[in-house]
């Protein structure tokens, strides 16, 4: 590989690219001049002379090596080890709304397991007319549904409850991904088993050692929950529950049981570890909310942000971010550059999709002065994303989960950015 024509000269290419990027900050005025001819234009480049790679070089491709920093990252102090842990989607470097599976955050309670389709079994038992076992092949024979949904860990932004802590939208807001799922409606599977009238809940669990059992009311189970086996057009990745996971639109990610192996129809909630000792929200008076399944409307400016400062100096600037709501579609996103004194309604790249991510843009002309960047989502119910202080007034500071407060990035004159809170 290293001896191929073109490779040695990639260094020259990198140098040229570097020079170009260094030259950019000077080119801030509208009428930019070029002192000397650009060799990238005037000289024939290797990639314009020699052949590139053939079609057999990469049967399944990864991003080009120049994008090797667009990766999931772990916050090592969060957890005792990486087996029962979480990592973060690099939302600061992505655009559009669909999260590529390869960098979509992972959360495991006993590690990501390798479960082959021939070894896969899904059981429905409990308060049903027929207790059934399905193979993976069986799942593919049921009528299919499709939908784009965000999956957000309830602990997303949880480290920020007591104050600004992590520098980067990847770390403050990256426990989320948004994919297009294909699978079977859970109600279709439940109809196959025949839910008895006394069945008011389901208990779902995975095939991994943690099993991560969770209880879900039958109304939600019969509404939009699905058993998915494809995401973004391909089979689920191992780390996202291959070969089948639960998709629970709009509700906290912990309910989206991966490697789904069993659905039990029950009369009441099981009150498992993940719905009592965890994923409950302690208020200032020590009383805790339980069954806080819904993810409320939230947004964040993904760029510029601490990991992706402004490198081009004053002038045209794309301010962009993501917004989502577990209670419906995003209808509006407002952006403030002055810490919430004044707001401008941003442009939605596409109309909001219920329980899926929406991309917003504010086409701004930066004057080179400091900014306190914020975004504020509004969903179809009329709910307006609150400030962190408004949440604290109601919940206190001991909550961990469901922090959907407005995020502030302090953009400095040099274009760098920091996670701050403002009055």
């Amino acid at each position: 590989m290293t001896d191929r024509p073109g490779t040695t000269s990639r260094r020259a290419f990198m140098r040229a690219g570097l020079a170009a990027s260094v030259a950019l900050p000077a080119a801030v005025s509208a009428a930019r001049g070029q002192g000397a001819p650009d060799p990238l234009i005037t000289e024939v480049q290797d990639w314009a002379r020699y052949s590139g790679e053939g079609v057999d070089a990469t049967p399944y491709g990864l991003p080009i090596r120049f994008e090797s920093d667009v990766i999931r990252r772990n916050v090592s102090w969060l957890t005792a080890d990486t087996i029962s842990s979480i990592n973060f989607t690099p939302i600061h470097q992505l655009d559009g709304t669909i999260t590529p599976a390869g960098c979509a955050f992972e959360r495991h309670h006993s590690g990501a397991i390798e479960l082959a389709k021939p070894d896969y079994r899904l059981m429905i038992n409990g308060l049903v007319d027929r207790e059934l076992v399905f193979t993976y092949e069986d799942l593919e024979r049921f009528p299919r549904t499709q939908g784009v949904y965000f999956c957000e860990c309830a602990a997303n932004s949880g480290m920020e409850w007591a104050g600004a802590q992590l520098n980067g939208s990847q770390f403050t807001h990256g426990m989320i991904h948004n994919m297009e799922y294909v699978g079977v409606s859970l109600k279709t599977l439940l109809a196959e088993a025949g839910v008895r009238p006394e069945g008011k809940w389901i208990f779902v669990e995975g095939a991994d050692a943690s099993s991560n059992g969770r209880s879900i009311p039958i109304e939600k189970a019969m509404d939009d929950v699905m058993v998915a086996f494809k995401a973004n057009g391909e089979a689920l990745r191992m780390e996202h529950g291959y070969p089948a996971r639960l998709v629970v639109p709009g509700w906290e990610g912990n309910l989206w049981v991966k490697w789904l192996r069993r659905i039990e129809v029950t009369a009441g909630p099981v009150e498992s570890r993940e719905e009592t000792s965890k994923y409950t929200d302690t208020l200032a008076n020590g009383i805790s909310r339980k069954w806080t399944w819904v993810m409320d409307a939230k947004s964040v400016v993904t760029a510029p942000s601490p990991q992706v400062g402004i490198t081009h100096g004053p002038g045209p600037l794309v301010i962009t971010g993501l917004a989502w709501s577990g209670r419906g579609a995003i209808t509006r996103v407002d952006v403030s550059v002055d810490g919430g004194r004044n707001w401008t309604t941003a442009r939605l790249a596409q109309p909001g999709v219920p329980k899926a991510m929406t991309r917003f843009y504010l086409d701004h002309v930066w004057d080179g002065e400091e900014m306190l960047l914020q975004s504020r989502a509004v969903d179809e119910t009329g709910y307006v994303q609150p400030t962190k202080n408004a949440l604290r007034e109601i919940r206190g500071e001991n909550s961990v989960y469901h922090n959907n407060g407005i995020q502030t990035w302090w953009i400095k004159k040099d274009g760098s950015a920091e996670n701050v809170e403002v009055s």
Partner: protein
Amino acid sequence: MSKSRKAAALLIALAAGPVSAQAPAPAEDAPAAVRPLGLGRPALPEEVAAWNMDVSPDGTGLPEGSGDVMTGEEIYLEHCAACHGDFAEGLDNWPSLAGGEGTLDREDPEKTIGSYWPHLSTVWDYVHHSMPFGNARILTPDEVYAITAYLLYSNDLVEEDFVLSKDNFTQVRLPNAQGFIEDDRPQTEYPVFSVEPCMENCKDSVEITMHASVLDVTPGGEDAGAAEDAPAQAGID
């Protein structure tokens, strides 16, 4: 429906077996199908018994068996103490299982079985199903009863001669059993946060009140190593 689509539907119906052959669902209505298609097979009682392990607060799902505190301590020291500490106090970032009484309304509450968990069934269920971490489901029901008894003892909730069994299980009440309410956001938050927001001159002034750089715990930063003292938990363990 064209001829070819009819033929396709027929083929699908035949492939699906006798049940769906009786009631073929038109492709257009497929996602709304509520009639059984005859897919899957009956779960055998042995199979249901093997996977249907969950235990509910009323004791549903508990198998026969019993275990005492002292036996539980031995098993705990062998299988659990490496992460959770000899006295269930928790080591490093691994969860503490005892202590924390009276901390729920203070800053950084310590949430343990004794201070926070509402139901003993959750302890039994989780230990039986998911522990020991990295070697799950090796414990017999008697061993799980014993460990559960030891965890009650560690939380000063029973005496050292206590024996936990299926028969007395539901008589044990955990201190924070009444400490939970159902999600009340629809009443306490949604009305407050569903008001048309201010767009101009919403505040007199804006001051920065907190900087993330003060803590400097972001991975990949120059001083990321300074994050040894985990500043705030996020409920991830």
